[in-house]
Each structure stands twice: as structure tokens, then as C-alpha cells.
């Protein structure tokens, strides 16, 4: 059996408990012995704790504003917020290099922001404007930015995993030292595509980082109600890849674990799997009445909120002042207001472009079909 | 009905069927069908109109005898008096 962290989530109870505070990632797990040899990273992302905190605050404020804008009917369609899960987004992205690729899910605002997509382009996308990162065609669930190698929110659970394998295959065949990180939820672990992809990536030793954001619920159904074995890291390990379970409420732990995993992958060790144990504080989507979990469970997890969890130590250590926090808040609010203003002013895509990009321009026939 | 009335009735009816008919030269004994080129349909129409105007039904057996203006006039006068007596 593996040496994964058992601090939460392994019980058969549907109720989940927040993690005990830990400073670092849990032990690696794999069916084959692995050696962790961290190498200097080329990542340009800010990795200092203060930066991580600021990014989480930015995502939190953005998501809160999105809920407001949704109520205000500025944002429509499905809207899945990641409030409570900011540490996974910020932690993972902090460890990736610009040349790495990211494939995400429909709960990806945090991933996109942390990856470096402009808030303007994300907000405009959700406003359905042509200035959005997907020209207003994708909305909240489908943020794309080729420039940032951000290959989108995929609304089909586990649908992005085979793509990640293929992108990693392309890098592998071309001798490029890139990593493809794919993020997915615990629900995706029940899909065949996860298992096919995990096997294929491990079989071909492809540079894929599997990041499972285990928030304990596949929409409204608790992990233990859908999985016979709830130790997800252990299950991933069975495919012959290095797997860790990580405290996903601890941004530094996530960043550290990701850094190690990326190093392992770049070293040619094949794919790695991170189970990031986290929790969303809000409902699954704006449609979700959140009837399937106790308020007390949510309150308990909120005590592990990654933002205050990092704010306290940084303030007490003097790394950060209250004035810094106020300034950040003001800056973030200003950035959000500017994004909203820009999105409001953004143009709608001309209806004449409806059939544009069904095929590449070279293949466009102009006909109705 | 007087003979003059009967003749006038015939002429009115003929004009409806043959608008350009010249009735001033119509001899009393001349054959109506050949003079005005009436075909059997025209003749049915003539009899029908006369019947309507006169107010009594003209049987086919009688109609066969309505060859000339004279015959028509006489028939109308005779029949109308019968009708009148019955009334």
C-alpha cells in the first residue's frame, strides 16, 4: 500500500474533514521506487509566499465579483466558482514554466488567472464579448489562450485528459522539455478516460502532470458515494506513476509538490499524479441549491481557508503589513472594476462571423453547411 | 296578349340572342332558325326566354312548331288567352 497522507478523505463517510495544518506536501507514492531530485526551475511565475497570497486574494475577489455579476445577469450560462480552492490553482501554476501547457476543466477561472491570462480577457469572455479570450464563444467554462498555452476549460468531465496525453506526446516526440499539466476533479477519476489516459501516459512515459483537485464532491455526490476506493493517489499509483496526496488548502504545499513533480517529469520520469485535497466553499454552480452537504461541514472547511491560513503567518512574521493587504485589495478591486468596464464596453462578435472557425479559414466554404 | 304584344315580345327576345339582328325586314313566315342562324342551343334559349316572359311553360312539342314569327305570335296569343281564361 502507499504512503499517502491519510489525514482526510480516506474514510467511507460522506462527510469530509479539513486537513490538519501541514507545512509541506505529503510523501510520494508509487508502485515503483522513485527518487525526488529537485532541480532549479525555470518558472517565471512568482513563487514567494506573499505573491501566492496575493494571487489567491485576486482569484477570490474575482470569483466573488462573478457571483455578483451573475446575479446581475451580466454573466450567463453555467458558472462554476473555485472559492475555497484558490490554493490549488495558484500553487500548481506557480511551478509551471511558460512553455508548459495547461488543460483545465469548467471550474477554471482561477487556473486561467494564475496562469497569466488577463482578467480583462476572462471577464470579457464571460460577458460574451469578442474581446474575450475565446471571442465570447466559450463563456465561463471554455477559456482558451494559445499564447499562454492554456488549452481550455473542458466541460466534458475527463474530456481534456487524452488531449494532455497527446500534447505531452508531441513534446516527447519533438524532444521538448515541456510538461503538460491537466487539472481535473475527483469526479473525473470515475471516467474511463482518466484510466485510459493515465495508462497511456505512464505506458509511454509522457510528460504529463495529472492534478486532481479532489474537493470531495462530483457535483453533488460525495466521493465515497461514487468510488469504492477513495484514496485517489493510491489508485493513480497503480498505473505505475509517481503519486502524491497533497493538502490542497495549503498553497505552499501545493506549490512545493508541483515543483517536485514537474522536476521529476522533466527529468524523464514519466507522468506524475497529484491529489490536491481541497474544498469549494460555494455551491457547484449558480444553479446548485447545495442541499447535499451540511452547513457545518462547510464551516469546518472554511476554518482551513487558504487565504487567512497564509495571511496570519505572513503578518506575524512581518513579511507583510496590513497596509500591504489594503493596497492589494484596492489594486485588485481596481483591476476587477477595470475588467468589468472593459468587458461592458467590449464589442459583440458580428453575427456574420457565426460560421467562422467551424473550419480553418482555408477550408471555409461560405455555404450554410 | 295582343298579336302586336306577342310580336314585340319575340323581337325583344331575338335581340337578346342575336344582338345585331335586323328585325325590320323579317317576313312573318320566314324560318327563324335559318334567318338568324340559330342552332339548337339558341333555339332552346329563345323558347326559354319566351316562356319566362309569357309566364307559361312552352312544351317541347309546341316549341317544335315555333318556326316563324307568325307561328310564334299566334302561339303566344292563343296560349295567353287560355292562361287568362284559366285564371
Amino acid at each position, binding site marked *: 500500500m502507499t504512503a499517502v497522507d491519510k489525514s482526510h478523505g480516506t474514510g467511507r463517510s460522506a462527510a469530509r474533514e479539513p486537513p490538519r495544518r501541514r507545512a509541506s506536501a505529503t510523501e510520494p507514492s508509487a508502485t515503483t521506487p522513485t527518487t525526488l531530485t529537485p532541480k532549479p526551475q525555470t518558472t517565471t511565475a512568482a513563487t514567494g509566499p506573499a505573491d501566492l497570497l496575493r494571487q489567491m486574494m485576486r482569484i477570490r475577489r474575482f470569483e466573488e465579483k462573478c457571483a455578483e455579476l451573475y446575479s446581475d445577469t451580466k454573466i450567463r450560462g453555467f458558472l462554476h466558482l473555485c472559492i475555497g480552492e484558490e490554493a490549488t490553482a495558484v500553487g500548481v501554476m506557480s511551478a509551471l514554466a511558460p512553455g508548459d501547457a495547461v488543460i483545465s476543466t469548467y471550474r477554471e477561472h482561477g487556473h486561467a488567472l494564475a496562469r497569466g491570462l488577463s482578467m480583462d480577457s476572462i471577464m470579457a469572455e464571460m460577458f460574451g464579448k469578442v474581446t474575450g479570450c475565446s471571442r465570447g464563444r466559450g463563456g465561463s467554462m471554455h477559456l482558451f489562450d494559445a499564447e499562454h498555452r492554456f488549452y481550455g476549460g473542458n466541460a466534458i468531465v475527463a474530456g481534456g485528459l487524452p488531449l494532455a496525453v497527446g500534447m505531452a506526446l508531441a513534446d516527447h516526440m*519533438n524532444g521538448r522539455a515541456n510538461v503538460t499539466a491537466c487539472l481535473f476533479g475527483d469526479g473525473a477519476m470515475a471516467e474511463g478516460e482518466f484510466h485510459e489516459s493515465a495508462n497511456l501516459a505512464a505506458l509511454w512515459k509522457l510528460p504529463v502532470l495529472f492534478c486532481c483537485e479532489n474537493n470531495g464532491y462530483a457535483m453533488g455526490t460525495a466521493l465515497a458515494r461514487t468510488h469504492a476506493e477513495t484514496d485517489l493517489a493510491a489508485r493513480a499509483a497503480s498505473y505505475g506513476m509517481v503519486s502524491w496526496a497533497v493538502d490542497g488548502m495549503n498553497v505552499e504545499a501545493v506549490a512545493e509538490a508541483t515543483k517536485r513533480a514537474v522536476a521529476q517529469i522533466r527529468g524523464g520520469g514519466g507522468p506524475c499524479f497529484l491529489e490536491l485535497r481541497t474544498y469549494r466553499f460555494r455551491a457547484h454552480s449558480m444553479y446548485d441549491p447545495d442541499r447535499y452537504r451540511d452547513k457545518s461541514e462547510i464551516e469546518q472547511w472554511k476554518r482551513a481557508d487558504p487565504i487567512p491560513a497564509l495571511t496570519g503567518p505572513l503578518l506575524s512574521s512581518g513579511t507583510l503589513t496590513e497596509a500591504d493587504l489594503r493596497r492589494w485589495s484596492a489594486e485588485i478591486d481596481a483591476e476587477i472594476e477595470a475588467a468589468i468596464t472593459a468587458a461592458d464596453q467590449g464589442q459583440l462578435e458580428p453575427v456574420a462571423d457565426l460560421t467562422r472557425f467551424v473550419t480553418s479559414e482555408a477550408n471555409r466554404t461560405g455555404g450554410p453547411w | 296578349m295582343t298579336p302586336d304584344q306577342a310580336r314585340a315580345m319575340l323581337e325583344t327576345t331575338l335581340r337578346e340572342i342575336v344582338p345585331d339582328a335586323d328585325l325590320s325586314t323579317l317576313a312573318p313566315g320566314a324560318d327563324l332558325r335559318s334567318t338568324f342562324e340559330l342552332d339548337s342551343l339558341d333555339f332552346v334559349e329563345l323558347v326559354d326566354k319566351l316562356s319566362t316572359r309569357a309566364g307559361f311553360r312552352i312544351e317541347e312539342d309546341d316549341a317544335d312548331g315555333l318556326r316563324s314569327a307568325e307561328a310564334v305570335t299566334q302561339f303566344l296569343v292563343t296560349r295567353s288567352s287560355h292562361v287568362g281564361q284559366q285564371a
Partner: protein
Amino acid sequence: MTKTAAQSATPTTTPTADGARQTTYREALREAHRDALKRDPRVFLMGEDVGRYGGSFAVSLGLLEEFGPERIRDAPLSESAFTGAGIGAALGGMRPIVEIMTVNFSLLALDQILNNAATLLHMSGGQLAVPLVVRMTTGAGRQLAAQHSHSLEGWYAHIPGLRVLAPATIEDARGMLWPALEDPDPVLIFEHGSLYNLAGTLPDGAAEVDISRAAIRRVGSDVTVIAYSGGLGKALAAADLLAADGIQAEVIDLRVLRPLDDDTILGSVRRTHRVVIVDEGWRSGGLSAEIAARIAEQTFYDLDAPIERVCGAEVPIPYAKHMEEAALPQPVDIVAAARRAVAPSG
């Protein structure tokens, strides 16, 4: 503007002086793969049993030895994963050829083909083109029973964003792969299982064909017979029988199931005024229905007889030979349909 072979930017590197020669559909496909693998280092073949086994239909026989396991990749029985990996590799700059053994297995990869390959470009606002080629075997006629005898290409032809090809001739088997690989968008190639052994002459210099147009395989004036893939041979056989009766059938090989070449189809119908559509797939909601609808929509007033369809029976294809034959369009069925369209009531 549709891409044509003539407009293709990359000149062929295969010798064109090899002259006309006898070959088979299978060998022509193999030669097309070999040619593509040689011409473009980004090209690789991935699928079940494509390597050591030599391809379940022996298309890739010998290619592993020639190009190595990196480029001739045996994949696990994970249709969704390796098809999706093909999409990802295409996004990553490669030119993958994914071989799915048979069309029925492609259903396990349908999500990848529909939700990713066909959708990403549009959904990403034009950022993510997917230059992927997926090949698969289709069709019935080999007593493989219900789960291995589908003709589902019509389903794929339903999906915007895909190009769907159906080579029915040796020349197309040889010539469609390269332009498909050059296409910036996903291309599905359907190979009818009964065609692999088709023998014939490959014309001199045949290397690329136009993958935007249907082809008129036989010229005629009395009735247009529209067929594709495994149906083409039956349509041509029917045309021979009809000719004996003095009925000149024009036979169109669709070749491209999406986007349909309306010009060729409608042009022919406007000349003959009568049409028979041959589709091994099921009638209801199928490709034949789409073609019939387009004809009715666009050239109704040129029709001189009701549109005729000869389709696969709406049953799971049975194993027993006589039952399978009864379930599939046969030349006699096409002849009867053409006679109904052409001949006065008797």
C-alpha cells in the same frame, strides 16, 4: 475557398514516373502512409495493432520495421485516450494519423471526435486548429454480424468542423491521405472493409487527389445514381445492367461526405432529372436523407420523378450470409430504383 490538390503548397516528393501499375486498395493505402511518413517528420501512425501486428487490415504491414515504434505506435485498447491523444498531439504541432480498427469502436472515442476535434477551433475563437487524420474501417458484407458491420460515416458527416472522406477507388486510397494530412482541420477517412482487396490499376503519377469534390465515375443522361465507398461498385454494376436496358445512368462517387459537394450532385440531377441515392447506412436520418433533402431544397423543380433511396435495411446486420445480403443494398435494388425513376408506369 476549398483546398484542392492542385493548390497544395507542398510538392510531391514521391516519384511520379513509377507508371501505371497493378495494385490493391490496401497496398495503395500503405503506400500513401509510407509516402506521408517520408515526406513529413510530424506524421505518425497510432492505433490498435498498427505496429507488430501490421494493422488489423494489414494496411500498415511493414511500416513498423521501416519507421520504428515512435512513429508506428501500438496503442492500448483505449479508443478515447489515443484518439484524444491524437488531438492533443495535433495541437502540439504533430500530424497524427489515428487508426481506429472499425467504426463501431470509434463510438468509444466519439466524445473526443465531437467535443474536442470538431469543436476546439470554433470554441476557442479560432485559436486551436486540430490537424488530425482519423482512419477507420466501415461497412458490412463480410459476415461480421451486428457489432462489426455498421456504416456510421453518416453520423460523422453530421458534425460541423470535420471533413469526412470515403475513398472508394484505388486512386483515392492512394491519394486522399496526404491532402488530409495537409488539411488544417480534422479529417476522418472511412475505408470500407470490402474494398481492401480491390485490385486495379493505379494511374501513373497518382499521388494526391482533390478532397473537396465528388467524382462522376460514369456519365449518363437518364438517371443519377449517387453512391460512395462500398456502394460505388454496386452502383457501377447496376449502371451496366441498366445500360443493357437502354437506361444511361450517371454514377456519382461522393468521395467527400462532409462537406458535401452540392455542385456536382445538383449539376448531375439537373441534367438527368432523376436520382437514386445508394447508402449502406440506415435510411432514417441518414446521409441519404441529407442528400435527398438538399436535392429537394435546391433543385426541386428539376426533378422529374420522386427521389429514390436504396439503403441498408433498418436492422442490426445479421451474421448469416443470405440475411446479410438481404439487409444491404444490392445492384438489383439499385436497378429497380432507377427503373422506377426512369421508366413510365407499365
